[in-house]
């Protein structure tokens, strides 16, 4: 039971990270009908920027752990959001009217480019987060010892998801995003500046992805320049699992996938851990391509 609950909380933490990345995929897909292959790499940038800022600014020494990490997270999110905006300008906007394949190839090119820029800057080896800044104490929850970091990650991801959900559902700008996702032409006729909506989506998604990257760095302690595509694929699986284009779906899909993967790794086989997500992806596309909550179909052409 102890083991089960540990795996459950671990799965929820990892799932929260997947969900944050998945939101970026699902929002971009909702508005542009494009799989942003470079999203996983923006996530990696979050992890690397977090490491650089953490070691160079020594925020946690000056502000204490919680404030330090909070400021750090805000800085990382802002920087990665700017990167996302540049990416949209450079790789996707010029191709908005082109055939689908062109945009997909450009997205892949952007992904390869971003990944290898990181490799050239930081080197190909694993980078390690300093471990002295993190409180190693465990959190006592009904007699269950849970690392503080894990609790923080679950809390932070839930807070971010709820904020995003309220923003999309309750504000005027959020309504514009939803309108543009349903029908771009009609939204334009209603006076919505669709270009600004797209830009906004490319700010929000990468900001959340960047935060997720920082979380992975803090949680696992080591990061690699290629990790973006594994996390990206899994987050995309989460987005499809919940129903692509559906924001609550991405959250649920992410948490579910995280738990399934943690359980699979614990009780089935650790060596096949990475294959579990891909099997889930293929199964869901065969059995229920709309996803759990989705109304949109992974349709034929």
């Amino acid at each position: 039971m102890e083991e089960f609950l540990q795996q459950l909380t671990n799965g929820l933490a990892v799932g929260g990270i997947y969900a944050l990345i998945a939101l970026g995929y699902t929002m971009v897909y909702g508005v542009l009908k494009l799989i942003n292959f470079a999203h996983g790499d923006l996530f990696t940038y979050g992890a690397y920027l977090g490491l650089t800022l953490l070691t160079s600014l020594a925020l946690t020494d000056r502000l204490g752990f919680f404030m330090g990490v909070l400021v750090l997270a805000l800085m990382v999110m802002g920087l990665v959001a700017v990167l996302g905006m540049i990416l949209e300008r450079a790789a996707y906007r010029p191709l908005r009217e082109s055939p689908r394949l062109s945009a997909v190839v450009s997205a892949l090119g952007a992904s390869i480019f971003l990944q290898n820029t990181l490799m050239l800057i930081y080197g190909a080896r694993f980078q390690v987060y300093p471990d002295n800044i993190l409180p190693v104490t465990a959190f006592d929850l009904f007699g269950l010892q849970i690392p503080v970091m894990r609790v923080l990650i679950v809390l932070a991801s839930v807070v971010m998801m709820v904020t995003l959900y309220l923003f999309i559902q309750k504000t005027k700008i959020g309504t514009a995003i939803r309108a543009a996702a349903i029908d771009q032409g009609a939204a334009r006729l209603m006076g919505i500046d669709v270009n600004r909506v797209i830009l906004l989506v490319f700010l929000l998604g990468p900001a959340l992805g960047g935060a997720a990257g920082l979380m992975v760095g803090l949680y696992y302690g080591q990061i690699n320049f290629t990790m973006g595509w594994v996390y990206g694929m899994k987050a995309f699986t989460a987005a499809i699992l919940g129903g692509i284009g559906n924001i609550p779906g991405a959250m649920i899909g992410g948490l579910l996938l995280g738990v399934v993967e943690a359980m699979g790794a614990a009780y089935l086989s650790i060596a096949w851990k990475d294959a579990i997500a891909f099997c889930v992806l293929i199964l869901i596309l065969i059995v229920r391509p709309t996803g759990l909550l989705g109304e949109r179909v992974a349709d034929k052409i």
Partner: protein
Amino acid sequence: MNRFTSFAVALFVALMAVAPLFLNAYHVDVLNSIGLYGLLALSLNLILGEAGLFNMGHAAFYAMGAYTAAILNTRYQIPILWTLPLSALVAGFFALAVARPVVHLRGDYLLIVTIGVSEIVRIALVNDVFGITGGANGIFGISRPELFGFVIRQPQHFYYLIWGFVAFTIFLFLRLKQSRFGRALNYLREDEVAAEGSGVNTDYYKLAVFGLGAAWAGMAGTLFAAKMTIISPESFSFWESVVLFMIVILGGAGNVAGVLLAAFLVIGLPELFREFSSARMLVFGLVMMVMMLVRPQGLLPAKSRQFSFAELSNKGSFR
């Protein structure tokens, strides 16, 4: 074919035929790599270029062929070249089984699924599935290929084996392009709904081309295993699929000459600039983005087939 292109083709063939006589072993080996990648890219071109199906898991079929050949050769001592048809069958049927449930998915979903499949295959190979793949170390001690009692050992000899197979492939695929099958694939690529409306059985052709492309990749895998005598899962990573995808798109989807040209550029050029080898993928990514802006159809785009009026009326279509 006009006079200039036929001259260019003749010159290319003549140069390729005598190239090993003038080059050192290293350069011949580079040409061998180009040949293998060209072969793989040609097989992917059937699926991606001719039929327009986004397959980014081609390395999985390549791996299937290579492992089939290696296992049959090291365990049952079957001469490596004899395993060619078996590798083709295994890779082809694997592709059919994988593609059957997902082939109707729209473009980028198919792309994601094929990436997933190739990752599962790679993980299975690393985990030594059924205890026959040798895990992360792979399989070694694959015997040298033998042709009519002649053991192929040197790069120069492999050169003729590989490029001979490439030439055979080009001949077959060009014939295929001219056939009813090839036209159906092109129709599928241009407009699937219209193709289905005109009575083209789209599911059948999609599966058939997946099987055929995969079978060819499987045979390329056999040649790879024969050349290296040692294979391991890292040779069949996701990046191999990306490089192949890139060769087809950059060269000009659906055009054999374009695909070959891109194979020379993508595989050959980094060998010339070895000191910048760490920046290789960075440049590739940039090139992919820029190409989609300025020349999305690729370096040598496929021309649609032209029928002259006289040709058609001879066949009795216009009476």
